[in-house]
């Protein structure tokens, strides 16, 4: 598949850029943050996004979706990255929604996905238990009871867990922490007895939740997919989420880069514009190159997933590693090139730095993905 946007993708891109500029510019994120909005985003705007069809992009038409692919979702996420729009695409659509779409029974899909596509149902995937991303380090247990399971354990960094109508909880039905086998996915209503959520505010003005499960009892029908074989659902879901997050990172890095270049052309010191200093020019040119590589990698990763290409995971890891490095370089250098004003809360570049760091450390940083890439390349 070509790395150039199709006409349809270009239309989605234009619509997204216009909508976000109007409804969710950076000022919107600032307002939510300053008002300490407990949701962290506007449900009304999420519904408007649903009317434009965005949350439903990757889901089948039978379930209220658009039946499109990651390439199209990536276009929207890239634009969200540009305005730092804090909307629950990753948590609701790609992670938990993806798990339902891949692992769910027909009944589960029909129950959950149409509401998700309408922007009504919010979901979160509760899997992570350690600080650093390591998908199979899971200690939470699910023990078989008479006609269901009893869940106990702790989850951290559950993106948008604080507002989720349903959690998809990953727990161990057999095996030991670190093993890929023996994991099972459960659909859990956060209001169930024993399930406690604490909202944590993150540097990027978004929220995640800590989830504590003490003897949470769920029925047999809460199981998503097959018992002990949750990893088979999670593997492709993590790859999709990683590519989607990378697309957002390309957007935020592009915007931070363009703002920095504009500043270099505007700010004067020593009687000249600071962009005429070669020490800054060369660093700007290097940032440009890194961004180009990140963009091409993400475009191909999204397409590799849509095409079900063998070894797609390898390009996904390359994309996340490159985007993590590029976004970190560009936001750090961007801040430096703004001088003192870059350190102020009033200037936006710091918001890009914060989101870039959060995205970098979500779903595996550059070192994690270099390691995975090496393994997938046979060394």
């Amino acid at each position, binding site marked *: 598949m070509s790395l150039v946007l199709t006409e349809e993708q270009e239309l989605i891109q234009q619509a997204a850029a216009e909508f976000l500029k109007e409804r969710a510019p950076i000022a919107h994120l600032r307002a939510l943050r300053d008002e300490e909005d407990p949701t962290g985003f506007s449900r009304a705007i999420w519904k408007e996004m649903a009317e434009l069809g965005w949350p439903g992009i990757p889901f089948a038409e039978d379930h209220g979706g658009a039946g499109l692919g990651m390439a199209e979702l990536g276009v929207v996420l890239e634009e969200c990255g540009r305005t730092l729009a804090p909307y629950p695409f990753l948590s609701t659509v790609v992670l938990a929604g993806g798990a339902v779409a891949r692992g769910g029974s027909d009944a589960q899909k029909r129950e959950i996905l149409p509401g998700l596509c309408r922007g009504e149902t919010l979901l979160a995937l509760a899997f992570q238990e350690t600080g650093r991303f390591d998908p199979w380090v899971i200690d939470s247990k699910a023990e078989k009871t008479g006609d269901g399971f009893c869940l106990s354990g702790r989850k951290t960094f559950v993106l948008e867990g604080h507002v989720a109508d349903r959690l998809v909880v990953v727990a161990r039905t057999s095996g030991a922490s670190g093993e890929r086998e023996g994991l099972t996915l459960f659909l859990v209503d956060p209001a169930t007895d024993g399930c406690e959520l604490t909202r944590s505010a993150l540097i990027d003005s978004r929220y995640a939740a800590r989830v504590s499960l003490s003897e949470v009892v769920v029925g047999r029908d809460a199981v998503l997919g097959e018992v002990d074989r949750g990893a088979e659902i999670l593997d492709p879901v993590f790859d999709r989420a990683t590519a989607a997050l990378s697309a957002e990172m390309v957007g935020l890095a592009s915007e931070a880069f363009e703002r920095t270049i504009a500043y270099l052309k505007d700010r004067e010191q020593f009687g000249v514009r600071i962009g005429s200093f*070669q020490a800054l*020019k060369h660093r*700007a*040119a290097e940032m440009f190159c890194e961004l180009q590589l990140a963009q*091409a990698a993400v475009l191909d990763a999204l397409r590799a997933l849509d095409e079900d290409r063998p070894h797609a995971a390898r390009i996904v890891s*390359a994309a996340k590693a490159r985007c993590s490095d590029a976004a970190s370089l560009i936001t750090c250098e961007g801040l430096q090139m703004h001088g003192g004003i870059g350190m102020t809360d009033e200037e936006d570049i710091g918001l890009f730095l914060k989101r870039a760091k959060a995205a970098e450390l979500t779903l595996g940083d550059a070192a994690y993905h*270099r390691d995975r890439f090496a393994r997938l*390349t046979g060394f």
Partner: protein
Amino acid sequence: MKDPGAASIEAFRSELVEWLRVSCPASLRPGAKPTEEDRAAWQQAFCARGFTTPTWPSEYGGGGLSKAEARVLAEEIPRVASWFPVASFFGTSMLGPVLLEFGNEEQKKEHLPKITRCEIQWCQGYSEPGAGSDLASLQTRAVRDGDHYLINGSKIWTTGANQADWIFCLTRTDPSAPKHDGISFILFDLHQPGVTISPIELISGASEFCQVFFEDVKAEARNLVGELNGGWTIAKRLLEHERAMLSGGTGRPSDSPRARKGPPPAPKSALAESARPHLGEAEGELADPVLRHRIAQWEMDALCFGLTLRRSGEQARAGQGPGPATSMFKLYASEMNKRRSELLMSVRGAAGLGWSGDDFEPLDLMETRGWLRSKGNSIEGGTSEVQLNVIAKRVLGLPD
């Protein structure tokens, strides 16, 4: 087949396969041992069809092929022939394209077919002892004398001058004009009195470049390309072609579905595999985590750089604005090649330190020389710093 383009490509392919079957002598088939007569006959037939410069117009000796047809050619030749003539890139990738754009009819008719037929070897007379990155400050003079120009001065770092027949040379034709406005682009024969060529030994031990001295050397006035004093525009365009060539960005083989059958093989890293014998690790994860991460970073960069080149080509074809400048590709390709050579040196340890003799494997000796040669990648064709300057100015529009 859906579009008529695809049908005509397939028609071209069958015609070509038939031609190759008839024209490629048995001794040049894969596995056979080429004889000298067969090699000469094959070269003659190949060049007569213009296949060394497949996309040049046939009226100037080229193949007259579309880009898609040229890709088919590149796919089919290696299936039939173990060897085929390759014309020197100074002619095919540097001078040829600018002659097609700026040359007059007579110049095109005169010089292009000789490039295609591998008759004339060209070299590039740009750099001078006092004019490297600041190329426009060059001093070699060309003064009109009847129907000739008389050339005096010196060029340096002229790759292959000692093997070359002709030179395309930047000369100063108006010393009183601002430096960019007094330069002319002139072609002349190196086999004449007044030309002295001294090879210069490189750190790799090879002598691929030379200093060239001119003392009242004659260039025919009809071999001035473009306008008198208008050579800088041509010089810059030629550098763009040179940088595109150095970044390997133009003639990548197509990844056509017919070339692939069955599931793709498990991805492998040539760098990591070449490290294994030195590390004594036949398989599995490389034990040295630092080396492993450096190789992984290089492989990822190479993968993403390849995708960037592909995307830029597709954008250009789709007319979606100009892709990023060739400067970026030149910069990245040369830095990647240097990093690769450094990695190969780290991996091989003392085996990479051999200079000559039977104590060392020929491949190791070659790779070590390659490492030394790679240092020039970020200098030749404009240094990496100059490429960064170009990106900052032309692509990002940063102020002077």
